[in-house]
């Protein structure tokens, strides 16, 4: 494993680095720039940075207005407020008119830790995925985040990008043949017995789980599904056909996120067991990030248990 960096930091630095190259880029924040890491852009391009105060609904609408005038706007706040508080502004002012606004939600998932349930957004994929025209992207590590930011800058349309708070191991830069393309899952490890499709920081855990299971002689394919919508049906279908069972893993409620998207696709195209790993329809709680993740089973061990369940269902 190489560099350990939070995806939010990789995001913030990349945005600032690319600011020069994208003169129409404008960045908005709702009084959290030190946390969302839009601070790097703010410092480099103060004339293109707007601090909109603690008013996420307005920030989202202002971004839409800027986009109608040819700007590409990135809004920044916590995932909870970006997709929850301002849900309807995202739907009606951004996605419906199909404006070039990127909704960036930092501190996604339970790994927010100590702040507790009110700030642990585990519904963002679900909320954003149900809106027509929306793309939903959730990179797993710093190197992938850098590629995602660049790709989103080149994508003309509405999208949601989730960032994580915790520093995470970088793995994608060490996978031979790894490439990043919006809407295309990345195969990180081939396998024949079962496929684990993961997103965000669960990708690293899925990779670790696959290594552990290999020692038992179980061959696990690992797919990094950084783009949850549009879902890469091709790679999912191939996994269903070749490994005949699938586990999904996400730092998100198991309702209507990656697991649901995969299950919907598989049930319609190639029904095989799909076992969802994530948060079981309950709120998070305060605690150190690692402790919270463990309490909710968001660990490599948690994935291994789901893999065993899937293998049983397959038989």
């Amino acid at each position, binding site marked *: 494993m190489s560099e350990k960096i939070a995806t939010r930091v990789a995001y913030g630095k990349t945005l600032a680095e690319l600011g020069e190259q994208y003169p129409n880029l404008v960045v908005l924040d709702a009084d959290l720039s030190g946390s969302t890491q839009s601070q790097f852009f703010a410092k480099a391009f103060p004339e293109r940075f*707007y601090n909109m105060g603690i*008013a996420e609904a307005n920030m989202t609408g202002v971004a*839409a207005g*800027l*986009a109608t005038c040819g700007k590409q706007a990135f809004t920044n706040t916590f995932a909870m407020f970006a997709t929850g508080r301002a849900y309807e502004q995202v739907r009606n002012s951004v996605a419906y008119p199909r404006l070039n606004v990127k909704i960036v939600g930092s501190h996604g998932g339970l790994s927010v830790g100590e702040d507790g349930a009110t700030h642990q957004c585990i519904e963002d994929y679900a909320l954003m995925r149900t809106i027509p025209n929306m793309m939903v992207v959730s990179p797993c590590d710093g190197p992938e985040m850098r590629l995602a930011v660049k790709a989103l800058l080149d994508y003309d349309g509405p999208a949601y990008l989730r960032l994580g708070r915790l520093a995470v191991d970088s793995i994608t830069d060490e996978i031979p043949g790894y490439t990043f393309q919006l809407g295309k899952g990345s195969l990180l490890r081939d396998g024949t017995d079962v496929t684990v499709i993961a997103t965000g920081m669960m990708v690293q855990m899925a990779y670790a789980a696959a290594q552990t299971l290999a020692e038992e002689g179980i061959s696990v394919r690992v797919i990094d599904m950084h783009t949850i919508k549009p879902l890469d049906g091709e790679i999912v279908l191939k996994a269903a056909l070749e490994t005949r069972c699938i586990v999904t893993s996400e730092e998100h409620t198991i309702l209507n996120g990656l697991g649901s998207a995969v299950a919907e696709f598989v049930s319609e195209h190639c029904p095989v067991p799909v076992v969802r790993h994530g948060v079981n329809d309950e709120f998070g709680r305060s605690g150190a990030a690692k402790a919270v993740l463990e309490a909710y089973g968001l660990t490599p061990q948690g994935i291994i248990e789901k893999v065993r369940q899937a293998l049983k269902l397959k038989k």
Partner: protein
Amino acid sequence: MEQSKLHALAVTAAHARVLAMDMVHDAASGHIGGSLSAMEIVTLLYNGVMRVNPAAPRDPDRDRFVLSKGHCTPALYPILALKGYFPVENLKLFRSIKGDLSGHAEMNCVKGVDMSTGSLGQGISAAVGMALAGKADKKDYRVYTLLGDGEIEEGQVWEAAMSAAKYHLDNLCAIVDVNGLQIDGATADVMPSEPLDKKFEAFNWNVIHVDGHDFNALEEAFAAAAACKDKPTVLLAKTIKGKGVSFMEGDYGWHGKAPNDEQYEKAHAELVAALAELEGK
């Protein structure tokens, strides 16, 4: 204002009222009350105040209009049609699955519409974004947005108001159509919002009271708004909901209801008579 210009504006507004009533009757749905109250405001914006060209509806240098009270398309669409953005004939398919004229304002299907709106409180934020872009790009276009006095109960309006003042958006002019009524009754009963002038002043806006049916007064108010530097302006336009139709005026029941055939005949006759009188027929 010259008499000939005043007369032309009055004719346009009267004609648009006839078209609005036809649209809502044909569609058997739509928001007639607040459209009739805003008709002079929208008429003047597109015929004398705003720098727009129907042949170049996406000209980056044009003035913008955001119908924040997005349900009042029966005011906006007829004015756009009469201005030449699309054929008047298209109004017949208002709210129809066969046409493109959606119930609430839609920017991708309806030529001349600058922002999709409908969910109250959101349009003014988009207008702030447009005004910010104008400042950033050092363009001299102006941005206008029309809100309802019920709409301003939405918290987002005040978030937007704060941000417009922060960025000194003197290229932004909001108009509140103060007709005093909303769906469930009088705004004073549903959710008292007065004093609106003191509220906007406290948010660091330039506030102008104006009779929303008086073209001369409106023209002066828009000129004063354009002359005001460093802060956004709001026109508090006093209007009558349902203006122009005797039995609709001041009755909140006509907020979002279409007239039946009998009511339509009566309303249509009144509006056509008003137009004919202006045209000297």
